[in-house]
């Protein structure tokens, strides 16, 4: 029998860090792989440059509530305020990924698996600081296997549009680097 799929992601950071599009990529890829999916954004004043977050569900089962409050299987925090806000959203035994380039603090909980990924540094090394979100997405996929690499190019095109297709190689590379960073730690 195939592995049970039931992922609940919380992704958070500043507006402009590509949080929403990272979540959309994951959601789209899940849809391509015939999973039940949902993507729910925060839509308050944070849309105007403050903090941004989204909830992504990828599951074998029909998606119930699209809102994730306490039972995230994986939380991604890309900036300092998001750590304070979302560390508690992860369920026991879940995964917390922290962008250590921008987050100085360490996680306080010891009942979850915490990974520190210097997303911005790796992105700069790669030559494009804007792909920090894709570094993180690579790390997320390495740890959760929520979707496969194969569906990402199509998801990328769907999210970013045909006009951004020339950026696919650097984004693929960024996803690979993020995955490698995690693989090296294991």
């Amino acid at each position, binding site marked *: 029998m195939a592995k049970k799929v039931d992922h609940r992601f919380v992704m958070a950071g500043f507006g402009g860090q590509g949080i929403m599009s990272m979540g*959309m990529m994951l*959601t*789209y890829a899940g*849809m391509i792989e015939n999973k039940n*999916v*949902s*993507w*729910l*954004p925060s*839509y*308050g004043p944070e849309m105007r440059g403050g903090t941004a977050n989204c909830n992504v569900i990828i599951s074998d089962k*029909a*998606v*119930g*509530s*699209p*809102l994730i*409050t*306490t039972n995230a299987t994986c939380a991604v925090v890309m900036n300092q305020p998001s750590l304070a806000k979302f560390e508690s959203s992860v369920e026991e035994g879940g995964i917390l990924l922290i962008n250590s380039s921008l987050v100085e603090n360490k996680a306080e909980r010891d009942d979850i698996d915490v990974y520190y990924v210097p997303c911005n540094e790796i992105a700069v090394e790669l030559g494009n600081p804007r792909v920090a979100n894709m570094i993180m997405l690579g790390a997320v996929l390495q740890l959760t296997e929520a979707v496969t690499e194969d569906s990402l190019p199509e998801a990328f095109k*769907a999210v970013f549009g045909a006009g951004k297709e020339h950026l696919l190689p650097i984004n693929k590379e960024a996803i690979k680097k993020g995955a490698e960073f995690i693989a090296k730690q294991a």
Partner: protein
Amino acid sequence: MAKVLMKGNEAIGEAAMRAGLDAFFGYPITPQSELPEYLSREMPARGKVFVQAESEVAAINMIYGAAGAGARVMTSSSSPGIALKQEGITYIAGSELPCVICSVGRSGPGLGGIQPGQADYYQATKGGGNGDYHLLVYAPANIQEMCDMIMEAFDKADYYRNPVMILADGMIGQMMEPVEFKELKKEREVPAWATTGTEGKRAPNIINSLYLNPEDLEEHNIHLTKKYDEMKEKEEQWEEYNLENAEVICIAYGTTSRIVKNAIETLKDEGINVGLIRPKTLWPFPEKAFKEYPKTAKAILVVEMSTGQMITDVRAFNEGRLPVYFYGRSGGMIPTPEAVVAELRKIIEGGK
């Protein structure tokens, strides 16, 4: 057509265009602004009419006019914006014109907040405007269902010559889910009653809601009531979920029903059976779903994102047979599955 991942608000726009929308008149308001934004781009590109009116009041009166001229029309707004439209809505109902109104609810009262809410149940089902009229009101729980309901809404609006409302909330408007659009089965013809110009060949068609003679107006009211009775007979829709052997029956619609389903699954894993009746039409309220309960049912729990509105109808159709409890959050706060589970436990274990 393949599935696409789409934001609820944009999906409303696409579904309406697939249903043959001729013209959209609206005014932006969070959390539904992506809908007019989408249509402002797509409608002109497809040779259709998009107008951002100067206000909600103007928009609904443009709907009144364009519907009278025989166009397939839609407007959309959110709670306080829908409040502003009420005068136009009752005129449209009184004049027997078809249109679709999308209400993507936020929290209230007044300007309230921009987070999701279901406190517009009364506004949608009990009529915010004056007079004996009703809207046919659909309450989708996911984006696919919302798109299907919109396609259906236009046809029902034509059939009954009555405004039809899609009552969603900010969560379903903002979230993204996969959706597959259906194509319109057949082209809509301009209705014979429309004010399209006589060309000197027929008597003028008159669109009006004013009847100064009480005998005539009563007759008009009786005629409208017959339509509403037909809606009650034919249009009630609901979903039953895990109802067999249920100890408690939850009643919830829209987004809230999804949260309740999570709670039901949690309890099912413990061997506790809880069911759900989810109204898919809010008016007519699915009275038939309340005819007979499973013998195991001991109580009803109504869950809403309000301080309790639909519960009035549940109580009416329950007719005192089972105790009716309520759990709700308001002001843009969303009930959690855990909180619903806790309420259900109180009822089941505590004999609340």
